[in-house]
């Protein structure tokens, strides 16, 4: 964890504590007749389906901080972490909330969880508020593996199918992204499970796996550790400045992108005008220099995608993922 990220996390936690305290004193805020119609009436609870410290959590906390500092909303965002069950617990908690002030901050793991049948709800259970940027992963091999480009890897795998071991989290993003590329390029790897980024790094460094998927920031932190890593392909739509030499899959002729967004979702029964108020605040907050700096430092892409576009994009992707899931299961 970088120092900025850590201090941001701590600030964010202090903030949510302050927000929790203000929750206890609703009479202080509002009270006039006109304020009754305004939204939000109280702090907005943002459920994050992961434990504190990961990207989804930090982005939510940083945006919450900007929104509060700039007064973009009359009440702060309170980040609530609910880890576990591939997001099923957090998603269900957001859907079951009936206070009109609960939203969910997740990413495209929801689509995968839906495609794998882990959750009994899909994107249509929510109102999509929008994407606040996102990030893409790389495929990396050991630095001394002798494979320098994706073409080397693909050639080897086409010559001898299943001759290279790919470390994946079964039924999670690395599994699906690898499967998308394998399907497009027509090769086959042998798969070994390694359910966290740290596990995958251990497998690669110890020579027990040949290929693994890493978030771009994970790759940047680990590429010089214990034998070193070499990224052969980047799954983003365009190259990024942090790893300028790594080509995208598209450049290499494979129509595969995985740009996992930070996705803000509200339960479907939240009035559209309320979702729009939050969307406006998030969109403005995204332009803040502190946000732009965090995204750049962590090899992420800072952009804003409005809710309806985000929804359409995600539903189209879900169809592709369902096809892959049918093969995986």
């Amino acid at each position: 964890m970088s120092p900025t990220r850590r201090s941001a996390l701590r600030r964010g936690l202090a903030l949510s504590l302050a927000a929790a305290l203000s929750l206890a004193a609703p009479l202080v805020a509002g009270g006039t007749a006109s304020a009754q119609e305004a939204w939000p009436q109280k702090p907005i609870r943002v459920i994050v389906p992961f434990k504190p410290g990961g990207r989804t959590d930090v982005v939510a906390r940083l945006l919450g901080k900007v929104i509060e500092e700039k007064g973009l909303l009359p009440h702060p965002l309170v980040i609530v972490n609910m880890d576990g069950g591939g997001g099923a617990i957090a998603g269900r908690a957001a859907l079951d909330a009936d206070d009109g002030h609960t939203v969910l901050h997740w990413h495209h793991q929801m689509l995968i969880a839906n495609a794998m049948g882990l959750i009994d709800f899909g994107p249509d259970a929510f109102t999509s508020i929008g994407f606040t940027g996102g990030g893409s992963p790389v495929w990396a091999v050991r630095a001394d593996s002798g494979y320098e480009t994706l073409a080397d890897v693909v050639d080897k795998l086409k010559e001898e199918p299943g001759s290279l071991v790919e470390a994946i989290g079964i039924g999670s993003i690395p599994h699906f992204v690898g499967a998308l590329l394998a399907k497009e390029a027509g090769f086959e790897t042998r798969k070994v499970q390694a359910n966290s980024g740290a596990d995958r790094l251990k497998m690669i460094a110890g020579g027990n796996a040949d290929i693994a998927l890493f978030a771009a920031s994970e790759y940047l932190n680990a590429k010089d550790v214990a034998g070193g890593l070499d990224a052969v392909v980047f799954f983003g739509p365009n190259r990024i400045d942090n790893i300028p030499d790594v080509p995208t899959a598209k450049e290499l002729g494979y129509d595969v992108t995985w740009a996992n967004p930070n996705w803000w979702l509200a339960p479907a029964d939240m009035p559209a005008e309320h979702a729009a108020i939050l969307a406006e605040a998030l969109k403005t907050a995204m332009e803040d220099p502190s946000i732009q700096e965090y995204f750049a430092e962590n090899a992420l892409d800072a952009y804003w995608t409005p809710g309806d576009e985000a929804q359409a994009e995600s539903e189209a992707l879900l169809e592709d993922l369902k096809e892959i899931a049918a093969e995986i299961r």
Partner: protein
Amino acid sequence: MLDAYVALIAPWPLLYLAIGTALGIVIGSIPGLTASMLIALTLPLTFQMDATNAMTLLIGEYVGGISGGLIAATLLRMPGTPASIMTTFDAFPMAQRGEGERALGLAVAASFFGGLVSWGFLAVLSPPLARLALTFGPWEYFTLVLMALVMLASLSQGSLLKGLIGACLGMLFAMPGIDPSIGQLRLTFGFNDMTGGLNLLPVLIGTFAVSQIIKDVLTIDVALPRVDVGRGVKVGLGDVRRHGPNALRSAVIGTWVGLLPGIGANIAAMLAYATARQVSREPEKFGTGHEPGVVAAETANNASIGGALIPLITMGIPGSVTEAILIGALIIHNLQPGPLLFATNPEVAYGVIASYLGANLVMVVFMLASIRWIARLMYLPRPYLVSAILMFCVVGAFALNNRFFDVWVMLAFGAIGYFLERAKVPLGPFVIGFVLAPIAEEQFRAALMSSAGDPFTLFTRPFATVFFFVSMATLSWPFITERLRRRRATSHGADRR
């Protein structure tokens, strides 16, 4: 590497180290409150802390907690923590004879010495072991975990059968949730809350803290006898010559037992005590207030901590129950304990080693300076203590994921832990089974995936083969000795006829 020691000499780490160790000693000294309980309860408080500070605090509590147990063991014949059971054998008779100060002094000095020796092993062995462990693949990890489970089940108190029952039950409770190898739900019985499985922290707090509270509440009216602590401790330089060899041997035994995955401080103390008696010229004096007995037990139980930290930071495998919680602490801070910790987060890996040394120093100073006052804390009114702890349990379980389900899990495991102990099923294997089952399962299935389903590739890996045969030998040892004993008995009978 020196940086880690220098980094420790800063206000925050020093403060956390002092608070952790002092708290550990106090909690450890109160019969009925244990180091594992304290660590499980303070873990939620460390979520917001820097990873190094969090580990500093928890390791301080660990060392303090194991050491603090010696006070009640000496004065009241009640092991403050399970690790000091062996200390009661000789320290209490000494205290009865009016040599309480001497017994406490020896025990504190022995604890410190054990800590220092095992710190030496920890500092020297960890980096090369981490490099070796990096080459370990799924088969090695699977067989290592297997070995840990089998050793724990067979060496914990009571019968092998009950140990195995405990371990299997623990493993069973680790099953619900998402199957790691096919990404599908299993054993959730259709409850959405079960999709995340049963979380480590609520299970630990329940099994260790809540079950203990149940026990404490049932005996809440039992008053502890009052004893006079006297002027504190009595120990001198002459003891180095008198007890040196015994202490060194016990420290090495303690470190070695700690190093073996799965077994902890109480077994270390037991083995060192038994060895000291075996090699002694006056074995009959053990158990009657014999100084070497105190030295052996207290050196070994503290030394086992340093030993147990070795597999923890180099392989990510808990050397004892308490370490299972420490692993949880690292994971919560997004750090994967294991061979890469030295490469990716050297400040944490070396920080753990440095904190261990620091905690031992703080422990000895704090104990020597204030043992008289700590001894009075044993008499804190139970009802207040127990209710405050129960409140911390609930807050701690809820804080993990902000949901009440975890609190129910914790309370349920409090009851389960209580009844398991009533049935003489040891809790150690139960909890370690719960912690290790997911690792064993993931590694076993990963190994089969990489060998395309062939289990015999295990024997192509030398380390894995050794670990496998050690586990099998440990498992069958009781049956073999039983057979031998019976055969010898019958042949003796035949001779006589």
